[in-house]
């Protein structure tokens, strides 16, 4: 499993897409918001938590189809499925690699982007905390969507349609946690962490069922 994670990271770096593409997309999405709603700093401060979380979510979505698609196309997935590693382990490794490639840089990049949106000073800690415990859920749920749509040609749009509704609880709780004035950010943070742990524990098995069905 370790070698699978390492290989995925290496592939992401080699193909150049990896970090840079996701981060540029995140930057652009966040940048579009002031263009759309105006440069009123008070307004921006108020909507910053939501915008940053939605930006993180969309950037995450962007690279989801790569999780299994490339390995599916060149026959690696078949070979992996017949290897001693169980499919759930493969899904865990792939989702972890995806998190390192997207979730982690997004969490870090959110800090300067928060500044662009005039995020309140006290909110930064909750922003980083909620993104770092919430993005694993995004990667694992995304891996599930990718596993389901891996056999579908041009399944990108469908992938978004399937995955975005699954992101709703994480987004609601995560963004609410960052919003200043929400009474119990620590409780919300705990709930986001609970969703993440739940996803890490159970989603790989759902991925395994989906991959198995697709490989048939």
């Amino acid at each position, binding site marked *: 499993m370790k*070698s699978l994670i*390492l290989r995925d990271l290496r592939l992401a770096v080699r193909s150049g897409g990896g970090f840079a593409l996701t981060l540029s997309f995140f930057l652009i999405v966040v940048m579009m918001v002031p263009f759309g709603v105006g440069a009123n700093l008070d307004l921006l401060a108020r909507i910053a938590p939501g915008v940053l979380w939605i930006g993180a979510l969309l950037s995450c979505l962007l690279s989801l189809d790569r999780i299994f698609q490339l390995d599916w196309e060149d026959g690696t997935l078949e*070979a*992996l499925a017949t290897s*001693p590693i169980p499919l759930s382990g493969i899904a865990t490794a792939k989702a972890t690699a995806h998190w390192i490639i997207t979730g982690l840089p997004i969490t870090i990049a959110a800090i300067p982007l928060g500044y662009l949106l005039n995020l309140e000073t006290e909110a930064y800690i909750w922003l980083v905390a909620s993104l770092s415990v919430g993005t694993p859920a995004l990667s694992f749920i995304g891996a599930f969507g990718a596993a389901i749509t891996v056999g579908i040609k041009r399944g990108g749009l469908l992938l978004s349609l399937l995955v975005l509704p699954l992101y709703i609880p994480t987004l609601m709780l995560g963004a609410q946690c960052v919003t200043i004035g929400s009474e119990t950010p620590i409780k919300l943070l705990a709930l986001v962490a609970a969703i993440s742990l739940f996803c890490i524990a159970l989603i790989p098995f759902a991925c395994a069922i989906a991959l198995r069905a697709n490989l048939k």
Partner: protein
Amino acid sequence: MLLNVTNLNCRRGPKLIIANVSLSVTAGECIILRGPNGSGKTTLLRFLAGLSDNAGIKTYNNSIAYSGHLDGVKSTLTVNENLSFWAGIYATNNLDKVIKKLNLEDLSNNLVGELSTGQKRRLGLARMLISNAKIWLMDEPTSSLDTSTSSLIFEAINLHCKNDGAAIISTHINLNIPKSRVLNMEDFAVKREDEDDPFLKGSFQ
């Protein structure tokens, strides 16, 4: 005995392709699947590899390596990186031996994207060797290869069978493998009474 199959029915999508496959493989044996395109060679190999329902398939030594039409190599990684990845997956440590055996030393730092088709196939073969699996399932291992590369692959299969391994191969070229046995896919052709589609049973009103 390494593998025992009894009354296996294989369907591709909704269609029954082959029926009543019974087959047992012992160590040192090489089985060659023969039949025209669409006769179910690939389907059978995929079922044996455990990629579909595995009712009726019994493996006594749970190590199978499967190689399909695609080699499963990444063109942006070097030969060495590709192979050490598989060594990590199969948790084996014979990487250097395999590289030497298949004359891949000179290529080991080349990107796979720069290799020829034959060289890529050699990488696919290298993965089979790295896996240390007893049973090799190979789907057209010599397709689009010249004679010299083909013979390299046959030699490897030969050696594998000599070392108490076994192989099931679909090919249309004659192989010089001593203990080989030819399996005609026509024997498994679907007869009307084999049809088990639940939607064809009975009549509807």
